[in-house]
């Protein structure tokens, strides 16, 4: 649940999502759930020449399982805090 919480803290920030079919879309993170399905607003396709039919999309829901990468805004990520949180989670016994 750590990364779910992490992405929840990025709601409202601009991210770029790269899908496993090489489609990249930029947008503002609107919501995220525990499967890391994400919802974006103000969507822009990064390669409109290759995917011209997606240009008229304004907001999008992307299924978590088809996402390859999410590019994050560097200023909004506290890597120190994230490292500490990952270490803490791994040392803690998992809740049933």
């Amino acid at each position, binding site marked *: 649940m750590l990364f779910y919480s992490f992405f929840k803290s990025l709601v409202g920030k601009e991210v770029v999502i790269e899908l496993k079919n090489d489609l990249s879309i930029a947008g503002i993170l609107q919501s995220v*759930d525990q*499967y890391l399905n994400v919802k974006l607003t103000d969507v822009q396709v990064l390669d409109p020449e290759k995917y011209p*039919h997606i240009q008229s999309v304004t907001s999008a*829901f992307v*299924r978590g*399982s088809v996402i390859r990468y999410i590019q994050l805004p560097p200023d909004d990520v506290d890597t120190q805090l994230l490292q500490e949180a990952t270490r803490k989670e791994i040392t803690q016994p998992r809740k049933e």
Partner: protein
Amino acid sequence: MDLSIVNNDYYLSGMAALIGDIDKQLMVMLRDGRTLIAFLRSLDQFGRDKGYDEWSIRYCFLVGNLVLHQAFERICIGHQYADIPRGLFVIRGENVLFIGELDFHQPLRVPLIEVTIEEILKLQKEDIEKKGRIEKLRQKAMIEHGLVGEGNPIEEHY
């Protein structure tokens, strides 16, 4: 339905947020590369995963199957496109890549030209053949270099 509850992002995150998109015209991209434009009439919520907090159990779900009404398939090759009427679709959630809300009034950065269905099917056939040839060459080159082809990532581990 009381939409003030439905549109509240605190209550509905992720897949459940789609409830607010019911009866809107949406673009749905599927895992096999097809693009459908249709009205979302219904979605369900099976595959709820227990073991998370109360909040998640109540409002999140893994696979949402979709019911699409008055669907047409948009085939887009290069800058040409055509729409093929398809009717009603029931889609299993795992086959969905992406669901987008549409605004047809927005100016297009890359212009699109509508062509007939026959023309687009011909273009699509050529495009598939071309991609097949490129893929064959790629596989051959990879095998020559001692690498085994990885296949289609979308098909294999979605």
